[in-house]
């Protein structure tokens, strides 16, 4: 039996193509202040702090150590860091709250893709002996997945364009999104993916506050209770995976209790249009489910924060009464290799 833990606050930056004038710490600090102010907590009140980021985006080793300056870790704090999307930092914090060692947690994530070529940077995630030396970039690998899906008859280019259009229409109502409203679907970037099928490249940060038990109700009018959370990984070799399916998402969703009752909302971390089709299938989401009302990663994709933002956006909808039961999903690795699913619920109104 899990301890009741809720997301009680969420904040994010405006996601921008470039943020040359800001260091990571400067980008992050307003978001940290925002979630602390929303809950009335100070750094010293927080039981556990956990963050997600990547040295390969920052271009330097131990890049996360400077972000700690933004937290104000003095007196010293109980703190940890994951070298992946902040959704997994939230998971680590949730585990910490399960032990009873802490009642509140601050989780944050940030990424600046603008200083380098993120398509190329992400090739460094691949098998260093057999795959990385060939530099297959992230768009090319997503295109393989999209083509596999088209070949299987699960979608076509028109469907994919519709996913892109729907996402950016939804983002028109999201002041933080990078692409808002109609965007030309563009030319092929890597066939069959057009520029419109791909996420924007940009910089951004996000933060959430978790609280357990009664503490959640004290900090938030309508806490987004984490009814279940689980994550699973698949094989790394693309050749041994069925790219048209996401068994790790399905298993994580089962373990998180997603199939016990229908959800009204789903925030899916699908940077490429075809990946939304894969995830909808794995999660058995019907047309009655509102998918990515924030615009999703197709509207803003700050790498390392985009997954945490899905959890935050789903929670924020529960906070403001726009959802009662929402699914949030985050992914890591090429072609949806690793996936996290959380089910969030608000108390009955």
């Amino acid at each position, binding site marked *: *039996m*899990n*301890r009741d833990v809720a997301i009680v606050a969420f904040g994010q930056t405006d996601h921008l193509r470039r943020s040359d004038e800001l260091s990571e710490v400067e980008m992050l600090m307003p978001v940290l202040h925002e979630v602390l102010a929303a809950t009335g907590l100070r750094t010293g009140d927080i039981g556990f702090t956990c963050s997600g980021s*990547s*040295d*390969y985006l920052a271009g*330097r*080793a*131990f890049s996360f*150590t*400077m972000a*700690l*300056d933004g937290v104000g*870790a*003095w*007196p*010293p*704090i*109980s*703190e*940890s*860091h*994951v*070298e*992946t999307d902040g959704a*997994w930092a939230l*998971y*680590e914090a949730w*585990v*910490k709250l*399960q*032990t*009873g060692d802490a*009642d509140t947690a601050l989780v944050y994530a940030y990424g600046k893709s603008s200083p380098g070529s993120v398509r190329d*940077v*992400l090739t*460094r*995630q691949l*098998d*260093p*002996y057999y795959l*990385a030396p060939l530099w297959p970039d992230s768009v090319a690998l997503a295109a393989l997945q999209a083509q596999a899906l088209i070949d299987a008859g699960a979608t076509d280019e028109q469907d994919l364009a519709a996913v892109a259009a729907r996402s950016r229409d939804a983002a028109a109502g999201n002041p933080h999104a990078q692409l808002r409203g109609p965007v030309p679907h563009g030319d092929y970037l890597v066939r069959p993916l057009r520029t419109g099928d791909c996420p924007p490249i940009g910089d951004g940060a996000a933060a959430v506050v978790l609280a*357990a*038990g*009664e503490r959640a109700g004290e900090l938030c009018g309508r806490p987004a209770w984490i009814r279940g959370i689980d*994550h*699973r*990984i*698949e*094989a*790394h*070799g693309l050749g041994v995976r069925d790219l048209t399916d996401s*068994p*790790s998402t399905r*298993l994580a969703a089962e373990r998180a209790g997603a199939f016990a009752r229908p959800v009204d909302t789903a925030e899916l971390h699908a940077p490429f249009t075809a990946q939304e089709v894969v995830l909808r299938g794995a999660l058995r989401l019907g047309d009655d489910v509102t998918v990515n009302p924030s615009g999703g990663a197709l509207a803003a994709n700050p790498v390392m924060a985009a997954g945490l933002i899905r959890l935050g956006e789903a929670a924020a909808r529960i906070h403001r009464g726009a959802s009662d039961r929402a699914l949030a999903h985050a992914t*890591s*690795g*090429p072609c949806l*290799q*690793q996936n996290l699913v959380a089910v969030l619920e608000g108390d009955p109104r």
Partner: protein
Amino acid sequence: MSDAPGKEPVAVVGIGQTKHVAARRDVSIAGLVREAALGALADAELTWAGVDAVVIGKAPDFFEGVMMPELYLADALGAVGKPMLRVHTAGSVGGSTALVAASLVAGRVHGTVLTLAFEKQSESNAMWGLSLPVPFQQPLLAGAGGFFAPHVRAYMRRSGAPEAIGSLVAYKDRRNALKNPCAHLHEHDITLEKVQASPMLWDPIRYSETCPSSDGACAMVLTDRAGAARAPRPPAWLHGGAMRSEPTMFAGKDFVSPRAGKDCAADVYRQAGIADPRREIDAVEMYVPFSWYEPMWLENLGFAAEGEGWQLTESGVTELDGDLPVNMSGGVLSTNPIGASGMIRFAEAALQVRGQAGAHQVPGARKALGHAYGGGSQFFAMWLVGAEPPTG
């Protein structure tokens, strides 16, 4: 915390390490981690099927040139279809990784967790990997030693410790390493004179008072009470574990004895019911990458009063047959696959209370402390393990 159901006791039932060396050219990164993982599973008499989740840690990805290598290592570590979590908290990461794995068991999220940490430093050059270019840092420092040497000098000034203390630590740790078949450096002809005559690298730190660059991995199987009951060998029980962090630099920071280290130790002792660490703890495996950090951490961890840690070293208390043995394995001074180094400390503490440390066993060790630190003396991770299950 009235709604928290109380923690599940956590037991270490399997430990595996590679033989640590300068360069494992015979194995890939996957081969290296698999060797340690299989060792831990064999010790626990488990197969991959008995593992519910994998928690993996390593220091900066630049050290091997692989971004988020856990993605590529999922297959080699039997993680496909399971949760796999990657931790990175700088040099303390091996310790933090074990603590995250322990939380999964303590919080009853999983029953049995494989945790592993590694570094294959021969893939790159760690010293220059740690020397950050402009604009991140002024071009003043070469390697970690350049960062830590001034703080060692500050300790010497503050404590009045004799110049020779550092060499005593190195001489002890390198001799301890001769008893540990997994240790990287096996200097059979080591003498105190040789340590003291070795070249000065970062004054006052000499070559022989500096950690090597190693390839290596360390793995542990952590499990709950039911898993421990099935274990073929005596488990080590977790009595307390904690992490603490503070910023790299700020006005008033005490680099010699950081408050984050003191607070972390105090939290661990509180959990474990330790009132007098010097009397109640039988063996300490601490992160000493440069010899002088032994007396510095002895004070920071509460084993000696401020300014008196060096007296324990000088009087032989920290020798393998001393009253408070420190770094029985040979320590970081003899073996340093950076990302794994914290976990090797934690594993050595567990080996000691399980009575399985071989030639470097402290006879009758019942409680042992494992310690790791990282960054600019700012990230701390510690655990205290015992031969008996925790009470209460």
